[in-house]
């Protein structure tokens, strides 16, 4: 899948920088990985196990067209939970296996636009200007949604799809990391 296009611009303004929150990523379902099951049950189980390990789950059960798989791990073995190391990112909310894929469909068909770079998120071209988009707005593919400033360069992030902004997931003037969700877009708005 393609990445959102990044168009660098000259710096207009910089917001106040704050420390990144310790956990910025969002869990994105990979259930579609199982949609291709045609009878190759071994591969499906393999994927489930990988999911279990990656996301450090205790148990996983899938039933699809008469094919049911349940994978469970002993709670004691759940290795990355609750440790003396101070900052534990919640393992269940780890990013998807390929977060370089910045547009991903979730179960309800939404499209998430994630940040392709590390920088500071701005909803408008300047402090006095109106935001590029608001929740509820209809957007066109290629339309600028926001700016992520990095190294004094303003990078415009464009929409990859036509649709409606369902949710703005980052706060203006706050830092964003690579792969952090910025917008949730419904590509087939009913109204």
């Amino acid at each position, binding site marked *: 899948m393609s990445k959102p296009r990044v168009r660098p611009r000259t710096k207009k303004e910089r917001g106040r920088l*704050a420390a990144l929150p310790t956990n910025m990523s969002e869990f994105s379902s990979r259930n579609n990985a199982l949609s291709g099951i045609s009878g190759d049950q071994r591969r499906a189980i393999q994927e489930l196990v990988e999911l279990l390990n990656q996301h450090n789950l205790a148990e996983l059960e899938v039933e699809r067209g008469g094919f049911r798989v349940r994978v469970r791990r002993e709670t004691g073995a759940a290795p990355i939970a609750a440790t003396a190391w*101070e*900052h534990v990112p919640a*393992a269940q909310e780890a990013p998807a296996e390929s977060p*370089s894929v910045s547009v991903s469909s979730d179960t309800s068909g939404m499209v998430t636009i994630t940040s392709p*770079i*590390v920088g500071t998120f701005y909803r408008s071209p300047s402090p006095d200007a109106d935001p590029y988009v608001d929740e509820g707005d209809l957007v066109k593919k290629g339309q600028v949604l926001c700016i992520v400033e*990095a190294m004094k360069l303003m990078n415009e992030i464009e929409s990859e799809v036509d649709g409606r902004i369902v949710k703005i997931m980052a706060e203006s003037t706050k830092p964003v*990391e*690579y792969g952090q969700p910025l917008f949730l877009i419904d590509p087939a708005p009913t109204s």
Partner: protein
Amino acid sequence: MFKKILVANRGEIALRVIRACKELGIKTVAIHSDVDVNSLHVRAADEHVCVGPADDALSYRNIPNVLSAAEVTGADAIHPGYGFLSENAHFAEVCESIGIKFIGPTSENIAMVGDKAKARDIMARQGIPVLPGSPGELRSESDALDAARKIGFPVIIKASAGGGGRGMRVVNKEDELVRAFQAAQAEAKSTFGHEGVYLERYFLEPRHIEVQVLADERGRVVSLGERDCSIQRRYQKLVEETPSPAVDDRLRRVMGRVAVEAVRAVHYRNAGTVEFLLDKDQRFYFMEVNARIQVEHPVTEMVTGIDLIKEQIRIAAGFPLAYRQQDIRLTGHSFECRINAECPEKFTPCPGLVTRYLPPGGLGVRVDSAMESQSPVVPHYDSMIAKLITHGQNREEAMARMRRALDEFVIDGIKTTIPLHRRIFNDAEFQKGRISTGFLERFLANQAG
């Protein structure tokens, strides 16, 4: 002193730097690719920023994202570790230009010692012994022939921009030279983007001896003894030790003095290593300067009691060296084994899930690793997953301790080089200290035969 340091690396060295920062009361920012989100170095840091996908060119070596991460977290310095951006002069320069302190040598230092042929010429002009070789890069085939005849065969052709054994060719006879020269140029061009090559005398079974130095921002320099890194496979070090069984007190003083002269000649700053080749007659020759903290730095820490990462940070923060040369005391003997996630016979990488991990403990045993039970060893990065370091009152005790620590080390789920290390430490020649850069190949051949 710095308030917050971004650690631009992963794995054991990132954790190593974070540990030093914690002990100095400095806040830390970890960076990581998305596959490393649950890594120990990420959890050990005060803050962390995802800087890209698994491919390190797009994450750990992604200069804009790494610098943005420093900027948005308000870090006032960056420690690059080794590998990745550590010897990237451009990165160091950009850091300098935007007021983020690069914890390491200056960008000029990196550029200068990175050009191996030029560095060698500078050293030769300073009267530092260099390998007999061509003066600078070879311009033509006849240049190469002239140089080789003057030096005498065998010779080795090396890429000016090379490293890690790549772009090197050994030539035993005159009629092999022209073809080797052309091939080396082509390989240098394709591998490093610069076709310059030079030529040196080739020694059959030398030792690889390197001297650790520290230079503060005022130009004061101390040497911290040598490391013998002769146990190599295809120029990849596997076992390191200090002191070298081949270096006595007198030679140590001489090599230390020469190493200090060498880094002074290039106005070097921060921690660095001067690599020498030592022949069987105790003659040593300058090879190159490594402008970074090295993987094997712990053995020097074990015998000097000096925390090299903390020294790097203090020097970068402008503090003068707290030691003069006469304050440096070497106590006992230390070994390091690099534990790689590799098949111990064929050295093929062996990524996978570490199902169970238990490092050895007790007196004189140190483990630098970011592994834990249920850690994945991802296939995208270097296969080194742990460094096992022992210290003893003498070489025998340090070796015995390494043997028992290797026996204790539990890494289940993947294959590692631990069994190979066990065999090396049980080898009679190794135990006698009779090692050279040819040791491991012969050892492996003997084991197979």
